């Protein structure tokens, strides 16, 4: 299967960008990840991931409205592109297919 490689963290960021449907931006996404996944993610990591996703063409950005707590600066809002969306679907399909091969009660080893 040929597709652009997507790291695990990038996948989460991309999923959340898709979930927020055009309202996701660096800080908002950071807070969201911290709440939803119970990880301690830092702002610069999210920005870096968004930067990489944009380079791969999976997200697009536009400028939003300024807010006072940002000192009058505008947000950089991200939307998922068609290519990004398809990649997400591909990953999900692949996962589902792989799950199909897992027996209902696999032998589990302890430790």
């Amino acid at each position, binding site marked *: 299967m040929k597709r652009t490689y997507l790291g695990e963290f990038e996948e989460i960021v991309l999923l959340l960008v898709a979930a927020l449907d055009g309202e996701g931006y660096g800080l908002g996404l950071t807070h969201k990840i911290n709440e939803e996944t119970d990880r301690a993610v830092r*702002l610069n990591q999210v920005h*870096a991931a968004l930067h990489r996703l944009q380079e791969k063409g999976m997200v697009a950005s536009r400028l939003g409205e300024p807010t006072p*707590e940002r000192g009058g*600066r505008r947000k950089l809002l991200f939307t998922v592109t068609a290519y990004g969306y398809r990649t997400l679907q591909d990953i999900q399909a692949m996962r589902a297919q792989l799950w199909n091969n897992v027996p209902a009660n696999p032998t589990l080893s302890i430790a």
Partner: protein
Amino acid sequence: MKPAPKPPRLADRLLEWMVAPHRLEAIQGDLHEEFAYQVGRMGLRRARWRYWRDLLGFARPWAIKRQPTDYSSPFFLHPDMLSNYVKIAWRNLVRQKLYSLINLSGLGLGLAASVLILLWVQNELSFDSYHHKADTTYRVTNTLKVSEEPWVWSSSPLILGDLAQRQIPGVERIARFKKPWQPVSFRVNEAVFYEENSAIIDSTWFACFDYEFLAGNAAHALDEPGSLVLTETKARTWFGDPQAALNKTVLMDTTLLTVRAVVRTNRPNSSFRYDVLVPIAASFRSAEDRKNDQDWNNFNYQLFLQLKPGTSATNVGQQLTQFYRAYKKDSTLTASLLPLTAIHFDTSFQSDELPKGSRNTVWMLGLVGLVILVIASINYVNLSTALASQRAKEVGVKKIIGAGRGALFGQFMTESTLLTVMALVLALVLIALGLPLFNDFTDNQFSLDLGNGMLWLLLLGSVAVTVLLSGVYPAVLLSSLLPVKVLKGSNVLNMGNARFRQGLVVTQFVASIILIISTLIIFQQLRFVHSKDPGYGREHVFYMQLPYSKTMSNTHARDVLKQQLRELSGVAGVTSANQPIINNMSSHSGSLKWAAKRDDFTPTVAQFSVEPEMRTVFNLKLAEGRWFERGKRLDTANVILNEAAVKSLGLKAPVVGQWFEFQSRRGQVIGVAKDFHFKSLHEKIDPMVLFNAPGWHSYIFTKVNPGATEHVLADVERIWKASYPDKPFKYSFLDDSFAQLYQSEQKAGQLFNVFAGIAVLISCLGLFGLATFSAERRNREIGVRKVLGASVQSIVALLSKDFVKLVLVAIVIASPLAWYIMDRWLQAFAYRVNMPWWVFGLAGLLAVVTALLTVSFQSIRAALMNPVKSLRSE
């Protein structure tokens, strides 16, 4: 409502500098939003910390990398850019001819002055360090502790060196030298030369110290006892050519010597400035001479030790001290080692024949050199920032076309570098012209030898410092101008800038005024020194020293000579003593005894052996009692004390008539002499014992009637030649020797005079430039004023006022500084002028007058201009 807390400013500045502009808004916005959120969550303090942490997370390549643009923007050090800088710099220099000329002459003069000073400073600081084994070479210092003040001297017995070589394992090699007591006569072919600069050396000398051999070689130059080594200069005077001198024979007194090598003339930073080097073996004229030098009590040689690596100098010193204990049976004498490179600045010696330096003078002059460089650089800074408004449009247009700050900075730095390099050429010409004078003055042999790496280092160093001092600020300022403001035509230079310029002018004048005040005070003190009554008459007296001989104590020959002198017409009086009266170095402690003396009191006194005629020749005054008298035999045991001695020895009244023992002879105190200055005014008048021991006398003083000097000298020379046919006739006038005592102060004064002049000149050049600029800029204002009826005087006053104000401020700042510095300088004199207050006034007046003269040329020209000319153009 309180304003919302802001993130740390410094952090924001860092972020704005670090992150690429096209990413900044989103990142900084997110950070601020996060900060506001965190302040609510964890408080301001921790939020600020967290802000820093978050921010530093963006120190990654992706965030820092700038967005590429479509326009080409060459690297600002690209060769094309560099050639462009030079081209534009040149055009600017040519366009602003007057200002360029002012800058050029100021910088050239400043560079020349400071390079000369630095040349001298570097020479002083590098004394003797050029020998390749300099860091393991030491000289033996001997210290004798007999009274509270130890005696320190630099010569050792000859055999101490032999013992050190044989018995101390850490000693690699030794080398000794001594300077003959008197000029040695050399017969070369038929001519006789009396050589002052000759030295007697060990055969290991050339292994210890580096010489460059022009003929012969270091290894075998001193193989035979009858060898002789000359410097290039001496070989030229004696034989015409270094090669020709080789293997020629020379008669030293009665010893035949052969020239075995010729070495390069001594470097200016060498302590050993001898032109004729004779091995020790050849210097002994008789077996008695040799035996004499083997004596432990004759400290005739400076002894140098070269230690093996890792040997402790302290240990070797202790071992030498042990030799004194064991062989000389002397427990009061200790030896220690002084590093070769420290000899030049060491001042603890009573006498040491080698040229001495003063660290204070070195630092002071070095500082003056730097100050002059700073003053010259300030001119450039002031003029180029003043002219900034004329360059502003250029900067604006360039920036709009796409020049970066780096490129503009590079361009302005190129301008200052170009100018400095041109100034350097001018400076080299000035140095070449001034070098002979400077050499004459500092008694050195510097040359503008472009093969000398040190000289290049100094030149390039000075240029680099100048470029940094003068170029950086204008370049930063000019490249920071904002194109929008410039092109809108608003005033690009704010008040702060004018203030900065004024501050620099004040700095220049503070430095200049301090130098003027210092010069004036140095000369005041020197005048004081010369005019202060020393307590004796030294006019028209010359003296000569009799040659040393074993028969010294036999006074007959001397008495005959004195009688011959007395009978000459034009001679007012003849006397003799053990020391020249102007600087008596002979002191004694130990043998003094008197009635009220406490046992634990061993004072050191100056000793002055005189005779009855002394009083009339020098017109010495007595406070009480009588002077020595001819025919009173007991007077050879009697003494006269000076007032200082009566006081410090604690003699009870009546002083005259008390018994007093001195130099193992007991007699009476027959008189008390009024204090007179027998040393330089640096020192207090010490207690002195005058006694009458004719056997000590080696100096003969002759007082001449005014006007008779010339023929008396001729007659004296004839008599001398008859008595000592093989010794050169040498004499000194007391006045000259007296002036010699203050020679270093005299030189410092003259140097300060010159450099103060240069500093003032450079400062005035800068002032002239600024005045020209301000007259030009206010051209129209002046026109309008004149049309409205202003008088020429009022306009001149208007234009000059600002500058004079700056000079006044400088006077206020400089006076206390100069007072402090010169007060410290005067402390070196026990007798000194009171700080003359009028000097400060005079220096201030001088500064104001020169400033006014400088400025008035431009302001008068501006004031006399026809207003039609300046107003027509609009």
